């Protein structure tokens, strides 16, 4: 690998650091890399070391980063709740109706399916009828 290529590789790795780090150490780190390359250290190994360092730098907890971490966690939690609520919403009336009938159907008797009273099909939506379990066993 020739010198310009090596320099480009190291500079690319250095760009992976947070801006705060680059302002503080950027020039010095580039010069250190140039000295190490001159000594015969492979540029790829230097770039790899900087890449690992950059990953650590991003992952290390910082006082200023706590707020954004909390904000991200809250956003993820809110999205998860929203998706869960969206998925559960169609099943909610059915579950409520089942809960209302639970005490009444402690012992189910065989017979014809009976519509559950209290569940009114919504206007303009597909009719949903919930049938009591009819299997001749306690349920």
């Amino acid at each position, binding site marked *: 690998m020739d010198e310009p290529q090596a320099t480009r590789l190291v500079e690319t790795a250095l760009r992976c650091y947070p801006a705060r780090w680059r302002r503080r150490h950027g020039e010095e*780190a580039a010069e*250190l*890399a140039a000295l*190490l390359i001159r000594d015969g250290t492979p540029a790829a190994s230097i770039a790899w*070391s*900087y890449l*690992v360092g*950059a990953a*650590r*730098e991003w992952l290390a907890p910082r006082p200023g980063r706590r707020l954004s971490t909390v904000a991200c966690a809250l956003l993820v939690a809110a999205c998860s709740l929203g998706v869960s609520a969206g998925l559960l919403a169609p099943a909610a009336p059915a579950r409520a109706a089942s809960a209302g009938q639970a005490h009444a159907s402690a012992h189910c008797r065989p017979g014809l399916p009976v519509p559950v009273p209290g569940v009114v099909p919504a206007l303009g939506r597909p009719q949903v009828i919930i049938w009591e379990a009819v299997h001749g066993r306690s349920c």
Partner: protein
Amino acid sequence: MAVGRRDGRAGPDVLRRVGEASVLVLISLADGPKHGYALIQDIKELAGVELGPGTLYGALDRLERLGLIESLPADDRRHPYRITAPGAAALRVHLDSLERLSAAGRLRLRLGGI
């Protein structure tokens, strides 16, 4: 977050959890200020360990945050680093702890007849 004591007296072993690279950097700085390249060369001679530049800067940042080293005004584009009084005290405590551990290990090897 500086954990060292300004008076330089011994406290708990704060270097126990900072990693080997940070301890090597502190040992290297114990005889005077050095910049990054000099630190890498010195640690290579001292301990036979070749620190990668990414590891070195990670250790320098950690030690600086703990108040165990400080950065001196830039000389050309390089920042020399210097060990602080709390840094020297922390290093002393850590080396004492390593000595005790080493002595205990040797004693047990003798007792075990290995």
